[in-house]
C-alpha cells in the first residue's frame, strides 16, 4: 500500500473529478507527484471578481492531512483577506499567521473545502484581518478604484486586453 497521505490525496482527486463542485477545478500537475496540485478558481458571481479564472498552486506536506497544505495564487490577485486555516500567499501577502493556521487546521478539511472557502473569501472579504494592508485600505476607502483594478485582473486572467 502506498503512503496514507498519497491515498488520501488520490481519494480527494477522485472525488473532485467525479463530482466537481461548481467553480473549481483542481488536480495534480503531474500524476507522478500527487503533492503538487494546480487549481482553477472562478470568481464568484456578483462580485468584482465575477468571470475571472484564477490559477493557484497547492503544495501538500508529506504528512497531509495532518498538516495544512500551502496555497499560492499563481496570478496577480488582490488579497484583502487572510485565510483561517491555510497558509496562503500571494503578492503583497505577509507570511505570518502560518503558525495559527496550522493550529486551526484539522484533517477534516479537504482541498474542496479550502477552495470553497477561498471563493467565499473572494466574495466576502474579511476587512478586519486583511493580509495585504494596501488592498484592504483601498477596499475600505476607494471601492471604485478597487473594483477597477479587480476588473483589470479578471480581464488579464481571461487573456482579454485591458
Amino acid at each position, binding site marked *: *500500500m*502506498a*503512503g*496514507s*497521505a*498519497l*491515498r*488520501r490525496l*488520490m*481519494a*480527494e482527486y477522485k*472525488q473532485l473529478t467525479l463530482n466537481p463542485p461548481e467553480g473549481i477545478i483542481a488536480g495534480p500537475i503531474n*500524476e*507522478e*507527484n*500527487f*503533492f503538487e496540485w494546480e487549481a482553477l478558481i472562478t470568481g*464568484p458571481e*456578483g462580485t468584482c471578481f465575477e468571470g475571472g479564472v484564477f490559477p493557484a498552486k497547492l503544495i501538500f506536506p*508529506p*504528512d497531509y*492531512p*495532518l*498538516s495544512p497544505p500551502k496555497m499560492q495564487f499563481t496570478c496577480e490577485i488582490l488579497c484583502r483577506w487572510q485565510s*483561517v486555516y491555510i497558509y496562503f500567499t500571494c503578492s503583497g501577502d505577509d507570511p505570518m499567521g502560518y503558525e495559527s493556521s496550522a*493550529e486551526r487546521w*484539522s*484533517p*477534516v478539511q479537504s482541498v474542496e*473545502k479550502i477552495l*470553497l*472557502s477561498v471563493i*467565499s*473569501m473572494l*466574495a*466576502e472579504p474579511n476587512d478586519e484581518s486583511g493580509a495585504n494592508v494596501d488592498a484592504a485600505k483601498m477596499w475600505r476607502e476607494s471601492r471604485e478604484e478597487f473594483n477597477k483594478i479587480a476588473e483589470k485582473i479578471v480581464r488579464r486572467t481571461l487573456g482579454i486586453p485591458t
Partner: protein
Amino acid sequence: MRSLSISLLSLTLTSIVIANAYYQKKQFYPSVVYITKSNPSMAVIYIQAFICVWISGKIMRKIFFGQLRTTEFEHLMERSWYAITETCLAFTVFRDDFNPKFVALFTLLLFLKSFHWLAEDRVDYMERSPVISWLFHIRVLSLLLLLGSMDLHFIQHAYQSTITKGASVQLVFGFEYAILLTVVINIAIKYALHSVDLNSETPWDNKAVFLLYTELVMGLIKVIFYVAFVAIMVRIYTLPLFAFRPMYYTIRNFKKAFIDVILSRRAIHNMNTLYPDATPEELLAADNVCIICREEMTTGSKKLPCNHIFHTACLRSWFQRQQTCPTCRLNILRTPTTNNNNARPAQAPRVQPQNPFMNPFVFGGNPFQVFNQPNLGNMQPQQPAQAPQGDQNNQQAPAASAAPGAATTQPQVNIPPFPFPLNFPFLPFMPPPPIPPQDLATLTPEELQRMEGNERENVEARIQCLRNIQVLLDAAVVMMQQYNTTVAASTQPPQPNIQPSTSQTNKSTTTTPSSSSSHNSVIDSPGSSNQSDSPKVAKVAPTTTTTLNPIPENARALILPNQVLQKSWLLNRVNVQLTKRLGNAGCKGFNIKATKKLINSSNALTDKDNAHMHISDIFVK
C-alpha cells in the same frame, strides 16, 4: 548548453596547455614537470579536473537517479552551499596539510555526500509516488550498496592511517564517513519499511512508529558521533567550527524525534486506555468512513468521548500533533471519563452515536413522571384499537405489547398520536427484539403472559421506550425552532431577529437532551430524578404534534418566493449541523451570542465558511 560550452572551453584550454608544454619540451617527462611548475597551467588543469568531477557526477546521477525533481535539486543546491563553506572552514584548521591530495579527498567527500542527500530524498519520495518501478528499486539498492561500501572503505582507511601515522586530517574524514554510514543505514531502514508497506495489501499501521524509533536511534548515534568528534578535535587541534552547524541540526532533530516518540507513546497510551474500540454496530450505524484518511473503517477504529469514530492509526498520528477531536475539536484529554459511563450500561454498544433520536440514555428526567404526562394519556385510548380482536386479552394486550422491548411498543405508542415518520429508523437500534407477530389476537395467553413480564427489566424496557419517544419529540422541537429562527432571520435580513433566537435558546437548553452530565447521572441512579427538566419537556411535547411535519415545507415555501435560493444551502447546513450536534453528548445547550452572530451572518449567505464556523460556535460544550 552553457555547461557544454564551459566543458568544451576547459577541454580546449587543457589541450592547449598540454600541447604547449609538449611543444616546448618535446618529451613526456620534462613536459609534465613543466606543467606542474607553471602556475597558470596548473590552474587550467585544476579547472579541468573539477569539470571532470562535475561530468562524472552528472553521469552517476543519470545512472542512479535519472531526472532529478525540482525539490531534490533545490535541496541539493542548498546543502552543497553549506557543505562548501564548511569545507573551506575545515581548510583553515588543516592549512598545514593543504595539498592537492587533500583537496581531492575533500572533493570526493562532497561528491559522496551529495549522493547521500539525493538517496535520502529519493527514498522519502517513495511514500509520495503512486508508481514505484523495478528500475527504482534496482537503482536505490545498488546505490545504497555502493555508498555503504565506499563509506566503510574510507572509514577503514582513515582508521589505519590514524593508527599508523597519528592524528591528521584523516580524523575528519573518518568521522565524516562514519556519519555518512549512519545516513546510509537510516536510508536503508526507511527503504525496507517503505518497500514492505508498498508490497502489503493492507495499510501497515505500525510503520509510522517504526520510522519514529529509527529516527530516534539514528539521531542518538549521530549525536554521540558529533560530540565525540568535537571533543577529540578540541583536544588535538582547535575548536572545529565547521562541525557546529551540522551538530546543531543533528541535536535539534534528535530532540524533535525524542519529543515525537514521547507524544506518540502518550497518544497510544491514551488510545488504549481511555477510548473504547468502535463496535461493528457503531461502524455500521455511523458513516463508516474515517474522516482523516477518507477510507472505510472495518476494524481497528476507536470512538472518542464525543462519539466520533476514526482509525486507530490515523488518530494516533493526529494526537501526536493535537489532542483534540478532528471533527469537533473537543479536547480529549480533558474529558477522559465520559465514555466510561457510556460503556457501562449493557445497552451502550447498541447506542447509535450520531443520532440523538435513537439514544435511549439521553433523556434526563424522572422516568415515572413520563407516565403522568399528557402523551401517556394520548396513548391509552389508542391501545385497545391496536388489538381489537383480542377479546379475551383486552386487558393484557397493552402491557404485553410494551413488554419485550421498545420494538414492539413503539408502533403502539407512536403511530396514532404523533403521526410523524421518524419512528421507523427506531427499530434497528433497539434492545434485542424478539419481534412478536403484530396481530396480538393470534397469540396464546401463555405467550402474552411471557411477553408481559413483571420483572424489573421489563419495566425498565417500557420506561426506556417512553423516554425514547420523548427524546424524539424534544429533538424535533429543537430542530424546528432552529429552522424557524433561521427562516425568520433570512427573510428579514436588515433587522436580525433576536427575540426568537433567545427564546429558542432558553427552550433548547432545557429540551436539548444530550447533556452528558444529566443523562449520565440518570443512568447511574435511576431513582434520582432531574425534576426541573421533565415538566418543561412535557409542556413542549404537545406543541410538537402540531408543528412537526409542516414546518420544513413552510420553511422552503418562505424561502423560495424570496428568490434567495442560495439560502437553502445555509438552512441545509444548519440542519445537518444540528442533527450532528444533537448526537454529541458533549453539547450542553446553545450559545446565545453565537446564535445572534449566525443570524447576522446569514445576511451574507455567500460567506459559506463563516456561516459554517458560526454554526459550530452556537453549541456550548
